[in-house]
C-alpha cells in the first residue's frame, strides 16, 4: 500500500461523513428519521452503558456458535460417510444436491412450521445454513483423495480407522476447511435472518427490528454498526485463517 493509495482510499468515507454532517444543516434534518453522527455516538454510548448492547451481542453470538457447531459436526460426519461409501453417495448425492438448490431462506417457514417460533427454530436454521457447505466440501475432499495415498496406506496394512485418520482426513482437510469457512459466513447471515423472522428473544437482529418498529433511526444505525463490526471481523478472521492454511500447504 503506497501512501497515495491510502489517501485515495480514505476519500470516499471522509466525503460520506462530511455529506452526512452537512445534511444536518439542511431541511432534511427536520425529518424525524434523521440522526446526526453525534446522536449515533450518543446512542451507542447509552446502550453500551445500559448493557443492552452486550446482552444482544452475546445472545446472538451464543446462538451463532451453537448452530454453527451442530451444523459443522453433522455436515462433517455426513460428508465423510457419504464420501467413503459409494453406495451412499450414489443414492443420496442427487437428493442432497436438490435440497441444496432450495434458497436458504426458503427453509425458514418450513423450520418454523416444524420447530415452532422459539429458540429451537433459530438454532436449527443456523445449523442448516452451516451444514450444506461443510457437507459438500467434505464430500469433494474425500472424493479427491489420491488413489496412490490410499494404496500406500494399504501397503502399511492400516486399519480402516487409521486410514481415515492418517490418510483421508489430512488429504481432504483443505477442502473441508474451505467448507467450514463458508459455514462461518453463512451461519452468521442465518443468525441475522433468523432473528428478523423470529422476533422473540434477544439478539442483534431483534435490536434492529425493534429500532425499526419504533422509528428510532439511532438504534438502527447502532445495530448496523454492530453487524458491520462483527461481519468485518469474521471476514478478516476467515482471510487470515485461509492464508495461514495455504502457507502450511506450501511448506508441506
Amino acid at each position: 500500500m503506497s501512501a497515495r493509495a491510502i489517501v485515495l482510499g480514505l476519500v470516499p468515507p471522509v466525503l460520506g461523513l462530511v455529506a452526512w454532517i452537512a445534511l444536518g444543516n439542511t431541511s432534511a434534518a427536520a425529518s424525524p428519521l434523521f440522526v446526526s453522527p453525534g446522536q449515533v455516538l450518543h446512542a451507542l454510548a447509552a446502550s453500551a452503558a445500559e448493557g443492552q448492547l452486550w446482552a444482544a451481542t452475546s445472545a446472538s453470538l451464543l446462538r451463532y456458535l451453537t448452530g454453527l457447531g451442530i451444523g459443522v459436526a453433522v455436515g462433517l460426519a455426513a460428508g465423510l460417510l457419504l464420501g467413503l461409501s459409494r453406495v451412499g453417495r450414489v443414492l443420496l448425492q442427487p437428493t442432497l444436491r436438490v435440497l441444496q438448490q432450495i434458497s436458504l431462506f426458503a427453509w425458514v417457514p418450513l423450520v418454523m412450521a416444524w420447530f415452532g417460533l422459539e429458540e429451537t427454530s433459530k438454532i436449527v436454521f443456523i445449523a442448516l445454513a452451516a451444514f450444506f457447505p461443510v457437507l459438500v466440501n467434505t464430500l469433494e475432499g474425500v472424493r479427491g483423495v489420491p488413489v496412490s495415498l490410499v494404496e500406500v496406506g494399504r501397503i502399511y496394512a492400516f486399519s480402516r480407522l487409521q486410514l481415515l485418520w492418517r490418510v483421508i482426513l489430512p488429504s481432504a482437510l483443505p477442502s473441508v476447511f474451505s467448507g467450514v469457512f463458508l459455514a462461518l459466513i453463512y451461519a452468521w447471515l442465518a443468525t441475522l435472518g433468523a432473528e428478523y423472522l423470529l422476533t422473540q428473544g434477544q439478539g442483534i437482529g431483534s435490536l434492529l427490528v425493534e429500532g425499526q418498529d419504533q422509528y428510532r433511526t439511532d438504534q438502527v444505525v447502532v445495530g448496523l454498526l454492530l453487524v458491520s463490526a462483527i461481519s468485518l471481523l469474521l471476514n478478516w478472521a476467515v482471510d487470515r485463517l485461509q492464508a495461514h492454511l495455504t502457507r502450511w500447504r506450501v511448506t508441506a
Partner: protein
Amino acid sequence: MLSPAIAPLRLKVMPSGALAWLVPGLLLVAWWTGSALGWISSQTLPPPARVGVTLVQLLTTASGWAQIGISLQRVFGGFVIGAGLGLVLGLAMGLSRVVRELLYPSFRVLASIPLLGWLPLLMLFLGIGETLKLVLIAKAALVPVTLNTARGIAEVPRSQREVAQLYGFSPLQLLLRVLLPAALPSIWAGLRYGLTSCWLVLVLVELLAASEGLGYLMSNGQQLMQMDVLLAAVIIVGAIGYGLDRLLEAIERHLLRWRREAFA
C-alpha cells in the same frame, strides 16, 4: 457403511438415473404411507397428493402465475440494475488505477457488510414497497459483478493490449475486441453468482416484507397453517433457482465455446 476401499477415481460410476431416484422415491412412498395411515399429521406434513394438487394449481391458474411472475419480475429488474451498475463500476476500476484506489477499499468494506444489516435502515427510509426490494436485489448483484469485472479486466495480459496498440486500435476497439472477450469468463462468473444471490435475497425480502410473490406465499402459508401452499412454493423456488443457474451455465458454454476450440 464404511467400505474398506475408498472409492478411487477409477471406480467412479455415474449415478444412474434409476439409482438417483431411489431415495426420493422411497421418501415419497414413506411420506405417502405415513399420511395415509395417519402417522404424520397433516399439520406437519400434508399428504403428497395434496401438495401435488396445490403445486399444479399454482402452475396452471392465472393467480398462481401472477405470484411467480411478480417474483421473477423483481429478480430480473433488480439484477439488471445491479449488474449494469456493476459492469460500469468494474470496468472503471479495472481500467483506471486511480478509480481502483479510490473506490476499492470502501467497496470491499461495504460488500462485506451483509445485506441483512442494511435491511432495517432501508426499510425506515424506503418503506416496504417495490423500491426497497429492487434496491436490495440490485445490491446483491452489484457486489459480485463489480469485483469480478474489475478483476477480469485488470488481469488481461499486457501483451494482448500491446498487440492491440500495434494494430492502432481505438480505445473502444480495444475494449470491445480485446479486453471484454478476455475478461468474459470472469465477468460471467460474477453475473452467474450475482443472479443466484438475487434469487436468495428475493426470497428473504418477500418473506419479510411483501403482500405478493413466492416468498409471501410461503410466509402466508406458514401463518395460516396451509402447509401444502408452503411446500408447493418451496418446490417452485427451488426449481426456479436451479433452472436459472443451469440456464446461465448453458449460455456460458455457448459464449465461451471459442475458448474451448482454441485448446481442442
